[in-house]
């Protein structure tokens, strides 16, 4: 058995990531960092677990010196560390008995300096208000500042090893698109359609997804973020799905809208607007393109159609490592941001139109990889004509 049997990346790759993190922290005048969010624990330490939400855990390192990071986890989770992480200095605590704050304070003192600006992912779901308070009380000499965006930016451009996982994940996500088209028929429950898609994705080899399958049909189709309800999919209804394939926590998203028979002229018209929005947005996606131009290009057909109010969407979001409950990255493809597409970036885009008063919605999109000269579709139905079961 290898020393770390389920390590997703080499220790060399992790050390290079850590070095980039330390450089970025130093430039931003951080003295050290306490990493808690599971996606960042996985990126830097290789530690792969769902446990961030069950008990506190943390990776501690200084921006300059202080040696390799130290990982603190619950004793129950030590075997998960040993099977995935290159970190050697791993300490454990017993839930509800040991003082996690005191343990972390001691580790920070060892790493030094025990004062100054320290990074904390204050917008992460793993850093609850309660955990943030525990850290503030245990480490009163530290000034905690949000380090989430800095750590996320390190992950925008994927390495070759990461892209291999992204392509594997995309394969699983495309199996789900085929399964959805195969399974859909009027008279089935929304949950049954989800079961067929999830079963196919998982049987293909996917890791668990960070967000439940989104599914809404007919009168529910205007619902964004809607999960399946105990509703029967009727004849001549629109049905949209959003789900991911996952390889070693790298997510690739598929979206599609289908119909059971003819959903009627208004629905077909709305689908046409969404299709044109996706096409125009994708045409604007190329290396060097600004996210503002892309979002505006995707919005133009919607505004021309006179339904600007139906687009509550941002066109795209960066994606990569994800753990429940989210897979959304900090890279935004919208008109309020200032990013530029670079080769090696992975993102998902969607044309999402919701007419709440008419109880009608269409969602189209998928995941894309920015290459040296063009953008490549990885998963999802993409810009296609309406599929009818």
């Amino acid at each position, binding site marked *: *058995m290898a020393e770390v049997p*389920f390590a997703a990346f080499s220790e060399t790759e992790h050390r290079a990531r850590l070095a980039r993190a330390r450089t970025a922290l130093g430039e931003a005048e951080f003295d050290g960092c306490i990493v808690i969010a599971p996606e960042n624990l996985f990126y830097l330490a290789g530690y792969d*677990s*769902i*446990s961030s*939400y*069950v008990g506190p855990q943390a990776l501690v390192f200084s921006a300059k010196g202080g040696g390799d990071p130290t990982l603190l986890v*619950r*004793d*129950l*989770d*030590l*075997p*998960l560390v040993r*099977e995935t992480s290159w970190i050697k200095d791993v300490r454990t605590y*017993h839930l*509800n008995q040991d003082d996690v704050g005191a343990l972390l304070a001691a580790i920070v003192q060892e790493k030094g300096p025990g004062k100054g600006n320290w990074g*904390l992912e*204050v*917008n*992460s*779901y793993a*850093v*609850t*208000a*309660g955990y*943030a*308070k525990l850290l503030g009380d245990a480490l009163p000499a530290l000034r905690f500042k*949000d380090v989430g965006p800095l750590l996320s930016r390190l992950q925008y451009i994927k390495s070759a090893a990461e892209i291999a996982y992204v392509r594997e994940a995309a394969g699983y996500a495309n199996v789900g698109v085929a399964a959805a088209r195969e399974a859909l028929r009027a008279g089935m429950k929304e*949950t049954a359609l*989800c*079961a067929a898609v*999830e*079963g196919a994705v*998982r*049987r293909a*080899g*996917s*890791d*668990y997804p*960070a*967000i*439940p399958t989104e599914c809404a049909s007919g*009168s529910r189709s*205007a*619902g*964004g*973020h*809607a*999960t*399946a*309800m105990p*509703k029967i999919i009727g004849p001549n209804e629109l049905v949209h799905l959003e789900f991911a394939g996952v390889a070693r926590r790298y997510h690739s998203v598929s979206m599609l809208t289908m119909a059971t028979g003819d959903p009627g002229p208004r629905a077909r018209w709305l689908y046409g607007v969404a299709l044109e929005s996706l096409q125009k947005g994708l045409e604007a996606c190329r290396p060097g393109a600004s996210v503002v131009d892309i979002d505006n290009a995707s919005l133009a057909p919607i505004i021309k159609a006179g339904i600007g109010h139906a687009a*509550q969407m941002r066109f795209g979001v960066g994606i990569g490592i994800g753990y429940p*409950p*989210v897979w959304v990255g900090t890279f935004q493809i919208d008109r*309020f941001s200032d990013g530029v597409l670079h080769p090696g970036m992975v993102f998902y885009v969607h044309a999402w139109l*919701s007419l*709440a008063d008419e*109880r009608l919605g269409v969602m189209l999109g998928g995941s894309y990889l920015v290459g040296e000269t063009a953008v490549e579709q990885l998963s999802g139905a993409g810009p296609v004509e309406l599929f009818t079961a």
Partner: protein
Amino acid sequence: MAREYLAFGQAEYRDRMARARATMRENGLDAVIIVSPESLYYLSGYDSWTSAVNPQGLVVSSGEDNPTLLIRNYDYALARESTFVEDIRTFRLGIDNPAGMLADIVGKKRPGYARVGVDLQSPAVTGRFALDLADALGGGALVDATDLLGELRLIKSSPEIAYIRQAAGYAAAGLAETKRALRAGRTEIAVAADVEAAVRKAGSDYWAIPMEFTTGPRTAAGHGAPRPRVIGAGDLAHFEFAGVAARYHVTAMTTMAVTSASKRIRDLHRICAESVTAGVAAVKVGAPAAAAEIASLRPLEREGIDGFAIARFGYGIGVAYPPIWLETLQISRTSAHVLQAGMVFVLHTTLTLPDENLGFMQGGTYLLTETGVQMLVGDGDSPLVTV
């Protein structure tokens, strides 16, 4: 037609709201801002996982006025299909200030408020959102209401128990599938796919925690998700997963051996089952929750292996959303809770032996009634199954 997916009748929600307000008054709270999705669902019916993506909140004052729900505009259709709340307001992500809007709503309902509760221990309340709320409310008004809100949900009504039994049926379908799917030569992910599909095809809603399933040397891991590991003859395996009906979770678990079990595995499994028997026997209406864990440890102490039992014996379970399903009821030696009729909880003995690359998990989900405790689903204290 609105509210077509409201899970309960109006009387149930009126009772819940009355109990919430009574506890707010007892605890001197002028209002609460409920953010965690499980409490949003419990008190308003609003059924969405999107607390994970953006802030949202239900404002309830200690008076008799109607509650107000603030959500992102994107989620309006979800609210309309699932909540009885009529005063629904929306914000635009990245443009409006939801913390400020929530504070304004509190101020309109309760001018001069002094103490406002928020479920601060929820993953939905990030450190940043808590600071934003504290600033927007001002005057040190923000207080933690996690336990106060969580305790409301511990005793289940009969309509809730009906959903819980439905969820137990979905989990049982998965448990039956584990015995068919677990085979040497397959990968953990392939087996997990079959079990998950059985649960979902039976009708289950999505679950809050991914399936935990480990085999062979990986069994020593608590919280281990399946990997592309090929299962071998002689491996131990354990599963933990939930069936879900109307967001009510019921957890199934089992430990099994593949092809054959060594004497060491059989001995440890037998002691693990004895621990479950002893712990469950201490579960009675009016008994301290701590007594159950203490009783569950006795058989382990007798064999000198109590040091391997590093997880708590049990916890309350009910409404849940990703990423967790634990309620505030703790069944551990440090718990101050008293067990009462209508409580639903997971009871399990876990043994973790990293030095031997072995781990066990036995138990299930149980319902306590006036007439005693009954297992809803799980393997309880049954003997080791070899497949």
